[in-house]
């Protein structure tokens, strides 16, 4: 069917030989590519259904009765594939980009049709052949979900095909829309999904701020947004995006033209409001959200530490969780009355110096033997260290000291005495959040100051090329050990906070998954970039925590995310300057060269002389 739609060759009609001055138009949208993207989309959709994601996700309602997360995934994929397939190919040098047109729409429709068709075939196939003994999630329920739960399956499947085709077409059309409209549409829909998906957060916020009316207007009691609420969110968000896209520059200009004092008052007023909101936010959001944010903060601390080791110094450490465990276990042994062997029962603040010392020592112990190893060996050896640490803690050998698999219980909460000596006990998630935020701020400040310091520059030089750095006078041994120790110390603070927050620790909390999660955080955020770590921690630890019912798919998503980031955006979402430069050196130098040539040509043209070859 789709083949029949592909009679035209992918190249445009042959360009007649044109005189030099004429503009040559680059080839436009390729239908062959659209077909391929459709096939890929269809296969992904089938996988999505086969691993049980469709069934699991459909329990989460986004717009009550209208849209759930499962169908969102089902619809989003053709849309994105349509968008990708209909993206105008970049024009090569000497060509002018073709104008977007009906070909975009057709390509998008084709993508949607092909992927829908594949999923439909799969649903029919499942009816005939029972593959459930092997693929445990392929149930009749799944087949009926694919048919949109319609009693008449043929109708349902036709509906499916229609939906995917239309969504693919919309994806294809997005390229044709004017920029402001496109950004309004995409932004509005994104916000509807966000507000619907993270209803816990928004609900908690509105209830905390005593705005029950808004809460009950937006959200239905059965979960998800009301249709009216969704429309409201869409209109507000879309108009904001529209204004920003069309008027943003004008507003920015007006702000810059303000007299200095006025501008300053706007700036500081905004900052003060932000700080105030942040200060009352933990109490406002309530225990559940605060607990999620606690975890985000702890991962942020680890991310900041690993960012120094991997992002700045370029030492890929896959056993980073070992330092986290050192922090947690040292805290537990020193503060808990239930510690099996030694139980000095220190307070948290007295224990912290020992924790840092232990972590620094651990950094030294891990760092020294690996000083001379090259990058990929280092990764595996540190992975080995992480596993050794976990296995030793679990083993009977260390059981008398660290409690083995039973762990250490009864770790007391942190206590601070205020001015009159009355104790403040940090025993609830919102209270812990203040401490976590404080430590995160300190860690962020430290790594920000370290980045451009002497040792920070040494790390970056070492990352680019060890031999050259050494030749330039960087002491490699010192720089590597410093990186390991700093990273270890930051992770151990995270571990200490984790131990006091949870109150009991077990060796199984410290497995390879933690190391990988932190690695994903810094890679998605952008290696060497502090804002990247912050964003990464929120997205990669916060979102899975909020959507805990879909934990099964968290690590699959991490894996796919790692691959996609490495293939398409290795510098991360918020790249650091240096790393981006290293990765795109060639392109940048080419761009600079092209610019140079063009400038020379222009100058030559202006002076009336023939351009130099």
């Amino acid at each position: 069917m789709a083949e029949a739609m592909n009679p035209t060759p992918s190249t445009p009609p042959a360009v007649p030989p044109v005189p030099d001055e004429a503009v040559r138009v680059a080839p436009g949208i390729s239908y062959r590519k659209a077909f391929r993207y459709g096939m890929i989309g269809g296969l992904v959709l089938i996988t999505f259904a086969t691993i049980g994601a469709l069934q699991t996700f459909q329990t989460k309602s986004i717009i009550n009765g209208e849209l759930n997360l499962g169908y969102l995934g089902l619809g989003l994929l053709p849309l994105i594939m349509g968008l990708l397939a209909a993206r105008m190919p970049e024009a090569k040098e000497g060509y002018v980009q073709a104008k977007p047109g009906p070909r975009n729409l057709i390509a998008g429709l084709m993508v949607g049709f092909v992927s829908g068709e594949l999923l439909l075939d799969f649903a029919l196939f499942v009816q005939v052949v029972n593959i459930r003994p092997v693929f445990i999630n392929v149930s009749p329920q799944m087949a009926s979900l694919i048919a949109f739960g319609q009693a008449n399956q043929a109708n349902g499947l036709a509906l499916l095909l229609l939906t995917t085709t239309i969504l693919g077409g919309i994806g294809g059309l997005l390229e044709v829309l004017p920029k402001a409209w496109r950004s309004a549409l995409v932004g509005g829909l994104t916000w509807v999904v966000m507000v619907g998906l993270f209803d816990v957060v928004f609900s908690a916020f509105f209830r905390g701020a005593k705005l029950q009316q808004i809460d009950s207007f937006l959200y239905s009691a059965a979960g998800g947004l009301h249709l009216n609420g969704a429309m409201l969110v869409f209109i507000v968000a879309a108009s904001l995006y529209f204004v920003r896209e069309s008027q943003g520059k004008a507003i920015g200009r007006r702000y810059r033209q303000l007299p200095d004092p006025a501008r300053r008052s706007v700036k500081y007023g905004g900052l003060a409001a932000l700080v105030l909101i942040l200060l009352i936010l933990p109490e406002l959001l309530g225990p559940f959200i605060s607990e999620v944010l606690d975890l985000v903060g702890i991962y942020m601390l680890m991310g900041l530490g690993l960012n120094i080791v991997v992002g700045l110094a370029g030492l890929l450490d896959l056993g980073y969780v070992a330092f986290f465990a050192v922090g947690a276990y040292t805290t537990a042994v020193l503060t808990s009355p239930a510690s099996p062997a030694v139980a000095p029962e220190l307070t948290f603040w007295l224990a912290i110096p020992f924790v840092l010392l232990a972590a620094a020592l651990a950094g030294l112990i891990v760092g020294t033997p690996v000083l001379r190893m090259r990058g990929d060996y280092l990764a595996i050896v540190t992975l080995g260290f992480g596993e050794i640490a976990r296995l030793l803690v679990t083993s009977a050998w260390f059981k008398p000291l660290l409690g083995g698999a039973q762990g250490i219980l009864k770790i007391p909460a942190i206590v601070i005495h205020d001015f009159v000596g009355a104790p403040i006990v940090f025993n609830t998630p919102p209270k812990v959040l203040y401490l976590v935020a404080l430590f995160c701020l300190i860690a962020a400040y430290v790594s920000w100051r370290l980045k451009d310091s002497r040792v920070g520059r040494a790390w970056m030089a070492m990352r680019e090329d060890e031999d050259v750095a050494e030749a330039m006078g960087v002491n490699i041994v010192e720089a590597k050990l410093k990186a390991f120790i700093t990273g270890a110390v930051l992770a151990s603070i995270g571990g200490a906070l984790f131990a006091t927050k949870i109150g009991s620790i077990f060796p199984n909390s410290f497995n390879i998954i933690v190391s990988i999660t932190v690695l994903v955080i810094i890679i998605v955020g952008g290696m060497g970039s502090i804002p990247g770590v912050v964003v990464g921690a929120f997205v990669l630890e916060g979102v899975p925590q909020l959507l805990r019912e879909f934990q099964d798919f968290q690590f699959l998503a991490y894996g796919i995310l790692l691959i996609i980031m490495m293939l398409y955006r290795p510098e991360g979402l918020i790249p650091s300057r240096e790393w981006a430069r290293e990765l795109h050196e060639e392109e940048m130098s080419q761009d600079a060269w092209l610019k140079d040539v063009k400038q020379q040509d222009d100058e030559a043209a202006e002076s009336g002389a023939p351009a130099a070859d």
Partner: protein
Amino acid sequence: MQKSLPQAEKRGFIQANFVGIMIWLLRIVTVVIVAWGAYNSISSGTYSLSQWKDLVIFGLAQGGMYGLIALGYTLIYGILGFINFAHGDIFMSGMMVGYFVADDLNSLGFWNAHPVFSLLIILAVSMATSSLVAVIIERIAYKPLRNAPRLIPLITSIGASFSLEYLFKGLFGAAAKSYPDMTSIDGFLNIGGFHILKTQALVLGGVLVMMVFLYWFVEHTRAGKSIRAVAEDKEIAALMGVNVERTIIITFALGGAMAGAAGLFYALVFNQVYFLAGFVPGIKAFTAAVLGGIGNIPGAMVGGVTLGLLESLGPVLILAGLGIPSPHQLSDVVAFAVLTLVLIFRPTGLLGERLSQEKA
């Protein structure tokens, strides 16, 4: 400038010494610990000769499997210069798909009626699955990264490993699956005073056949020659008319097939398969590859067998001698410690790396 030179030299001297001294210290400590543990353990006479023999056989069988998986690491490292972290999961995928076929054969009654034929079918299935998975991963994830900085393919392969593990979890469920029993390979054989489990004998034989096949393939076929040529120098090989991309695919397929065969053997010995089953064997096989000298094909086998023996004898011989309780829990620790020590003291491995200079 002139003045600061001697100081710089002095600093260089001290720093070389710092690392040197640490490494020497570590060396001495290791030797003393190993010798002391071994002496105690042997002189105490807790374990009888037949127990030692059992441990050796177990280590050999185990090591043979590590060696087979290690071949994949070595082949890929040889030609692309990066560690394919997902290789352990490629091994798992063959084992997992093999299980479903074995289960079906068993329920048809074919499994115990025609054991040889069934094993051959499963072997073919798991080898084909693993090679297919390896090639798909290569095409999707590694091909676009041919000229990227070193760490990027490594991180991608970590992502591939996670994706595979949790994709298999989603597809086939998280529960551990048990291969059906095969009555004809239960029980023991007595060969030259060694009391060998039939499965272990089968595994040792199978590993040997696979190794010989691989060695023949790499040394004596056209495809093998092109693999060696690409490992030596990609660009020159391309100029000489070798199809580099095709060779890379063949290499991944070959490494995957070996991992798939190892998957069947592993399943015969341990019976169970689940979605994380590839992780630890994968890392140990990597250790084996490094131990033998990465990029070196006979080295993978030597490294595998050495690691297998160390892992089965090590806890009893050394750790028990040091008075550590329940040393068997720590056999993985021994393996990881071996990896670390090898990389510190002899990063080129027992037989030496076969790498061109610029990769080292």
